[in-house]
């Protein structure tokens, strides 16, 4: 399983209800179902991946995450997971607000655009950065939102929410392995992973 998903999985309490947005082939949900008796559902736009989820015994809906999320009642889930997708969303602020309505806690992971090698690429070469995490050209990248770890912290603060947990990581070996970055994460981490809740923690 992808390294960021391993960390996310470790944050999920047993027997909780989980919504995984952009769940791919259902790897994380399948793991959580087996290891933590989680009742989970995924949303995925690709028919092929949805088929795989169902084959893997994972509950899944084919659709667009920004549309599908509206149908759920308030606090329908203990956790809503948005892993490596935020940077591809047209209106991230509205989506996060909606996620905080349907989930008591949300877990968001995203590539950190202020990673030192990205900074250097712009500084020295003057081209839009490319690396293993961001392998696209400017004209075909699905990553339309440039987010840094510091941006996200500020965003959470400004929207009146709070960060419950934050882990910044640097991954390698096709993202399957990695390590946690504690010192200067905004410069040294390739991904940020945040658990966020409403100020009142959604318990009211």
């Amino acid at each position, binding site marked *: 399983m992808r390294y960021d998903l391993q960390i996310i999985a470790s944050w999920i309490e047993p027997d909780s209800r989980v919504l995984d947005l952009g769940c791919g082939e259902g790897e994380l949900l399948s793991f959580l179902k087996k290891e933590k008796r989680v009742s989970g559902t995924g949303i995925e736009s690709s028919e092929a991946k949805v088929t795989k989820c*169902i084959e893997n015994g994972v509950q899944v*809906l084919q659709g667009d995450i920004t549309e599908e999320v509206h149908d759920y009642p308030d606090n329908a889930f203990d956790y809503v997971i948005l892993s490596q997708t935020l940077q591809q969303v047209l209106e991230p602020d509205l989506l996060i607000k909606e996620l905080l309505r349907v989930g008591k806690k949300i877990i968001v992971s995203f590539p950190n655009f202020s990673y030192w090698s990205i900074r250097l690429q712009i500084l020295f070469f003057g081209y839009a950065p490319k690396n293993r995490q961001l392998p696209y050209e400017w004209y075909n990248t699905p990553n339309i939102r440039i987010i840094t770890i510091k941006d996200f912290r500020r965003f959470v603060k400004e929207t009146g929410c709070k960060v419950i947990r934050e882990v910044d990581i640097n991954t390698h070996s096709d993202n399957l392995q990695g390590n946690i970055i504690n010192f200067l994460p905004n410069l040294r981490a390739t991904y940020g992973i945040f658990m966020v809740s409403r100020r009142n923690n959604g318990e009211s």
Partner: protein
Amino acid sequence: MSEYIEPDRDGISVGQVEKKIHTFAEPPLEIVLESGARLGPITVAYETMGAINADKSNVILIAHALSGDSHVAGYYSEDDPKPGWWDTMVGPGKGIDTNKYFVICSNVLGGCMGTTGPSSENPATGRPYGLAFPVVTIGDIVKVQKELLDHLGIAKLLAVVGGSIGGMQVIEWAISYPEMVASAILLATTTRHSALAISFNEIGRQAIMSDPNFNKGDYYSGAKPDIGLALARMVGHVTYLSDEAMRDKFGRRLQDRDNLSFDFDANFQVESYLRYQGSKFVERFDANSFLYITKAADYFDVGRQHGHDSEVEAFANIKAKILTISFTSDWLYPTYQSRDMVKAMKKNGLDVSFCEIEATCGHDAFLLPNERQSTMINRFLKRVSEEETNAL
């Protein structure tokens, strides 16, 4: 639904099956229909495949669509040239695996393939019912299936599976008998017909009723309204296909000729094909059954019948895990209808999965061999089966 009955390419089949009947609701114990009318006695024709296990936990009920019947898979005899209508899905190792599950399929109430319908004898007159047969609903059809299961001593269904009008019965099952249904598989179906779907049914019914032989439905002793029924079938058949499927299959190709004939013979392949489909259909189907079953489908409206016009309320008591599949080119039961249904299920926190399969062959896609559909159904059933076992 159309007929695509061909022997399995790999020669895999559930083998020989037998049509059985069960009769109940003998007067004065008639059943009361949704309309308030009483009906009895009722005979149900059904077929079973596979073996039931000791705790009767492996039972799957399949609900057929408009022109289907109890003969879902297998052959009636060794020299039977054609298998049942869903032989590609139901059989050993197939999507619905008869090595694992005990499969039941019965002909619908109002049908003409062994279950009581307008062509059955009316006990009050000793002659076929014709239009004296009461209008039945999807709810009534399901009630009769429930009677059959009671008779067979089956208290729990691992799954109810159906496409099109069969899917409506599956929804009805999940709502009306929530404790009995562990899972529901809904293929190319809807919670209520659109105006478009009702329109095509009405055209078909009008074609039948305006046939000179229709005689107010009392035609069983003379010539039948074959022309009307064939026309109804032709219209219906078009709605089961798609522009793309018809373009691929027929285009504007001519049938057995090189030039146009400048008369009203069937010049185009598609004309000839539709005429053939129509003429074949009248050999095996009763025109009155077409009226009754299409009416039941048009009347079906989950919100109105079960939820004070709210589908969210109608689904509130469902306990079944649900798999919904729609097809991109299905314009009779388009994907938006499946999505609306899924939306109402989500609002109830139901365990629901949904997939829209890319397919060019229109509404009929659910009947055609489709690896993706078969695999999803197979694995979904496996999951439900395991979870049911673990829950014990």
